[in-house]
């Protein structure tokens, strides 16, 4: 028996969440497949004309990424809330914000990263040019952690409420719109021959901002939801 430090505790939380994700491997896969499926639904609905499809590609991929990270966010705290683990986390002898950050990191590794890796394959299906694909991926790499972090606030606020999933999307989607706009904007810029740097650096700035502020806000939201 020995006492654990702050980093020790954060690592414990990350390890625990990854372990749980491994145990429920299907979950991880399903988020990914949901992403693939939403993306593939559009051509079915819109029709097979490659010209239109190419133009919508970045938009569709970003919207699908947004939706699938929203969906997987519903589970970020709810399982822990329902079985009482969240109560125990709030009684941990370390700052709740840091534990929250750990949970968000684990969530991104499990649901954000596979999505980023899958995106190029889907982009090819829409016949996206290579350069646009590259920008898309960098954008997703910067953007998905922001989505996870903003989503965490929503997940904390809607904890234990019925219809959490939809309510969550409702709260969080408007906040995510800037990410969507910069992300698709970057791709748009590069396809019209402009530079994507300004869009991407705005995304980077958003990422920093989110990293600094959201864990604390989420921790407060959790405290409120536990009352």
């Amino acid at each position, binding site marked *: 028996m020995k006492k654990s430090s702050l980093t020790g505790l954060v690592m414990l939380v990350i390890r625990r969440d990854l372990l749980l994700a491994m145990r*429920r*491997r*299907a*979950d991880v*896969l*399903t988020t990914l*497949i949901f992403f693939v*499926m939403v993306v*593939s639904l559009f*051509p*079915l609905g819109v*029709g*097979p004309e*490659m010209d239109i*499809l190419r133009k919508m590609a970045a938009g569709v991929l970003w919207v699908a990424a947004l939706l699938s990270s929203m969906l997987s966010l519903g589970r970020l705290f709810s399982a822990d809330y329902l079985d009482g683990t969240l109560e125990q986390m709030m009684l941990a002898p370390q700052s709740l914000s840091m534990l929250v950050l750990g949970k968000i990191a684990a969530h991104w590794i499990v649901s954000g990263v596979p999505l980023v890796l899958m995106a190029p394959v889907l982009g*090819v*299906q829409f*016949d996206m040019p290579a350069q646009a694909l590259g920008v898309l991926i960098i954008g997703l790499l910067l953007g998905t952690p922001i989505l996870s972090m903003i989503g965490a606030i929503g997940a904390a606020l809607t904890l234990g409420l019925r219809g959490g999933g939809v309510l969550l999307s409702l709260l969080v989607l408007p906040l995510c719109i800037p990410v969507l706009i910069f992300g698709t904007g970057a791709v748009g810029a590069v396809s019209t021959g402009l530079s994507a740097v300004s869009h991407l650096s705005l995304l980077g700035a958003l990422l920093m901002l989110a990293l600094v502020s959201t864990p604390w806000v989420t921790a407060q939201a959790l405290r409120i939801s536990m009352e």
Partner: protein
Amino acid sequence: MGDGTGVAYFDGVKKLAINWFKYSAPTTFYGLAGKMIPWFAVSAAILLAIGLYIGFAVAPADYQQGEFYRIIFIHVPASILSMFLYLILAGYAALGLIFNTRLSAMMASAIAPTGALFAFISLWTGALWGKPMWGAWWVWDARLTSELILLFLYLGFIALHASIDDPRRADRASALLAIVGSVNVPIIYFSVQWWNTLHQGSTIKFSGTSMHVAMQQAMFITLAACWLYAIAVVLARVRSIILERERNTTWIAELPEVKG
């Protein structure tokens, strides 16, 4: 026990006898499958070699498609198998659900990964074919899309089975899903009629009648090879599943590979 104060008791001998009877089907099947696997595997390898030899050395290039058409010798078998395997899977699932036979459910879950992989190969090789032929890796054509949906159906089956821990519930739930999904297969298939379609029709219309025969031969031989391969792999997988599920029975404990 009986009337009055009931007492739970545990009759070991009786349990063994009942288990022996109940699990007799997997018991015999396990051994039989073990004996058959090498035959299927070897003949699959031989046929594949012959098929590919005819396909690449005997059959000449197509006057329109050049050498690219030679993808057909893996593409068509993979496509056909992925569809048939789904129907077989659904058939086993239905058997298992209706007659509550354990082996059918195991067969269904053994087929699923192979079917999904064939669907993947079909998509992959099709995409590689599409690039030189249509100038795009992927078009949203009915045939292609339906193959993609088929892959999703397989993945749904696997995912559902994997997310349920209780094996009996997992079997029954995913069996129900497979049956419902099979209703969808013809619907998807007929959707070809509502879509403008780039993909080849169901009859092979290559020019050059003299080559036609060699091409067809090669394709049928590789098709047979793929069937044999699929059977071998499924049998091997189902043997592991039987071992896993029946690990508490005596006949498993008496197997030479377990004892040794």
